[in-house]
């Protein structure tokens, strides 16, 4: 099928690289977290109470995905649909409280003059922003702050942003929710005492898959085409092929290897990138060799590969350096010691190739 493969490739790439669609399979622990977050945010929006919570989990296990799913669900909920504004801050990008404040003002769609903000203190500025929001729209709009890389915000000066946000969430003038996403388990220790006391200590932990069965099911759901895919014949063949693949020994072995090294979703998606990208009209179905090739490419020994490209001279130097570093028991040494040492001179060989020694530089 000529267009089938191309359409399948586009669809699967969207699955792998954007969080919009994930095949529909949600493992158990994620369901719980999803449910809790949704409840909390609904309470903030509908009942106008302030809340704060933290989602902690290692990299690639789906924290941002959880937030996106919750927001998608909130969109579908009639009660919540237009009653909130989302403000998204990232610790890597907004490295300073001032930058964060400007970003908050921008995302709340408030036209603000810079001079006003620099003259006011941080808390006054934040209060002004939230009051402006409230008075502007009339209705009681709640703001949901999503702070990605939460631990980096804790390294700002005085932690003033965190303090003010959590302070506002505790007092009931403006209903806001503060959701922090981080990968550090000890993030609460990083907070100052006054900030920690204002935090609600609600922490949700996200873990990657603990069983291979879940992992394989996730892989299958990522690779399956949805029911409303246009080319039915192609889809039928595709689904049969996927079923066969997931019983194939090579594919299972590749998945197992990747699972053992890191069981999170992001690495699974990296593994699946190459098989998906190789789809073409002449290669319309996935093949087991794609998976083993993909595994090999990702986990290639990079240092060994680079060393294979060195010249003989450079390798001799490496050998001599290794010997010297062993002999000197870890103490520092310099190039002179290597060059004048007997290890180096023992490696020089005069090839019988003309009357000169090529390696004697």
């Amino acid at each position, binding site marked *: 099928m000529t267009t089938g493969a191309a359409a399948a490739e586009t669809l699967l790439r*969207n699955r792998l690289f954007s969080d919009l669609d994930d095949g529909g399979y949600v493992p158990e622990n994620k369901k719980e977290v999803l449910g809790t977050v949704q409840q909390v945010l609904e309470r903030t929006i509908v009942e106008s109470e302030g809340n704060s919570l933290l989602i902690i989990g290692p990299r690639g296990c789906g924290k941002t995905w959880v937030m996106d799913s919750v927001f998608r669900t909130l969109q579908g909920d009639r009660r919540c649909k237009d009653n909130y504004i989302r403000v998204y801050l990232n610790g890597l990008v907004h490295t300073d409280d001032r930058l964060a404040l400007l970003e908050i003002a921008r995302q709340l769609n408030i036209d603000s003059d810079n001079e006003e903000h620099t003259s006011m203190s941080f808390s006054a500025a934040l209060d002004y922003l939230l009051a402006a929001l409230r008075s502007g729209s009339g209705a009681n709009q709640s703001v949901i702050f999503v702070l990605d890389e939460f631990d980096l915000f804790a390294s700002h000066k005085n932690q003033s942003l965190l303090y003010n946000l959590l302070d506002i969430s505790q007092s009931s003038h403006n209903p806001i929710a503060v959701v922090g996403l981080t990968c550090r388990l000890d993030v609460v220790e990083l907070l100052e005492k006054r900030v920690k006391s204002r935090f609600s200590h609600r922490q949700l932990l996200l873990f990657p898959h603990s069983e291979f069965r879940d992992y394989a099911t996730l892989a299958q759901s990522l690779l399956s085409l949805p029911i409303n895919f246009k080319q039915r014949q192609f889809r039928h063949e595709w689904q049969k092929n996927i079923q066969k693949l997931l019983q194939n020994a090579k594919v299972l072995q590749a998945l197992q290897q990747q699972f053992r090294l890191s069981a999170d979703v992001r690495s699974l998606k990296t593994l699946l990138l190459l098989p998906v990208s190789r789809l073409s009209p002449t290669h319309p179905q996935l093949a087991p060799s794609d998976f083993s090739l993909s595994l090999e490419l990702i986990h290639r020994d990079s240092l060994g590969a680079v060393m*294979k490209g060195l010249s003989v001279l450079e390798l001799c130097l490496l050998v001599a350096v290794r010997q010297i570093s062993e002999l000197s028991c870890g103490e520092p040494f310099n190039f002179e010691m290597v060059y004048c040492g007997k290890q180096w001179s023992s490696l020089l060989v005069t090839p019988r190739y003309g009357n000169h020694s090529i390696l004697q530089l």
Partner: protein
Amino acid sequence: MSSTASMRRSQRHRAKSFKSELEDGVQATYKAIKLKSLEKDGRCASNRIYGEDYEDDGEKAVDEVEEELTETDSASEEQHPKRTTKKSARNRVEQVSDGDTGDAGRQEEEEEEGEDGVGEDGVHGRWRHYHSLCSRLPGRERQIQLLLSLLGEPRQLTCPALYVYGNTSTGKTLVLKTILSSLQVPHAFVNCIECYSPKLLYGTILAHLMGDTSGYVRCDSMPSFIRSLQSFADERTAETMYIVLDKAERLREMNATLLPSLLRLSELTHRQVCTILVSELVWEKLAMSAGGLRPYPLHFPQYTRGEVLAIMSLDCPEGEPLSFYRTFVNHVWNVFQYVCRDLGELRYLSSLLYPKYCEPVESGETSRQETRKLWRHIEPYFRGVMSKIHLREISSAQWVKAQVQMDSGETSTSLAQGVPQSKAVLELPYFSKYLLIASYLASYNPSKTDKKFFSKQKQARTRKSKKPRKEKPNHQLLGPKPFPLDRLMAIFYSILEEAVAPSADIYSQISSLVTLQLVSQLHTKDLLDGPKYKVYTMLPV
């Protein structure tokens, strides 16, 4: 001296175990080192090490699958969904978007434009560039194929970050530049040595994306950079923006949050951005500063012998027969491959040596077919070039001039002699010479031995210690150590025969030695005892 013999034996044993360790990793090359006699025809030896058959097993499995891909005979037109649908599907933060635009909408778009035709040349999408790319970049077919499949069509999503690594001159930058310019997608090519601060980096990237390769757009911080990228994507293009950062290891020294945020640009901007990092280091060296996101690795292996010869024969100057140039290039490879496999260096050296190689042909002494005579003529030049140019002792212009002088017999300097005599000879006054010698002794002798060497009184003999002494590193090789001023004066007076009063004259000679940069003064914070010095000259080792 049984201890030294046993020490030597243990060293030899340890050396042997290292050899066996390394042999696993670099079997072929190590055998070449230990071979006492190479074959007369260097070609065979190099074939065994770096020949066309040198592949690892993983690659063999790949080739079978890749053969299918290269025969892209019948393909259809690549479908380009409408721009607005894609855009709204991607904007997740800025506006309140409907959750159900998603897949169904997109697919309908794709199907509407569907057309089951075979194009004129049978290949469409990004693969139509494949053959022209391979012909322009010999030796890199596999990497081009991998890159083209990973990057995908410009309107498809692709991995957010890619890491391209390999030895020097393996064509990383060249391949990326060629691919991106032939795909005609918005891309930015930035060298991280040139843009050494984040602001410069943002400004140059934005200018390149807009098509202005020598301009600069003012951009102060990462949030404004992200906003500019978003506005650029919304106004200009629905295609993926590719940002290539050359010498990516320099990003570690800039801001601590710069590298992680560059790797996540796609997620932060909610647009299609692909960051490609190019470096000679392996990813493990950058991983600490990268904050958790691992880009997709892509290795560019070193060229094999056949590939090097193919690329170098493209350099053949016009008017010369190709086979003649090929034999010359073959000689260059056979001689220089053990020392340097860097393609750039080899091409530079061959461009220097080719005129010399052709000389006997031009002067009519030998004909083009007499390769043995030509080889014997060029051999000493090879040796000279290896020791002079490769080590950058003299520049190529100086070498060429020296050749001309040699030929015309003006000077008697032969090629084997060293550096041109441009160093001035320095005449120091009497005390300065002694001061310099004293500072050399102070720098290179540990202070414990001063009493033994320089004291004029008789020493009470100390009993030799029975403890075995560790092999001390050669102090000559470790470099000079700093010494305080009074130690210098003490050694100076002990080596000087006559008695001289310490006057301002002597001390001013020390400061003139510092000015001449023969001795350097240390500028550390705690100089409570007086100034400290270190000697800069060295006796030849």
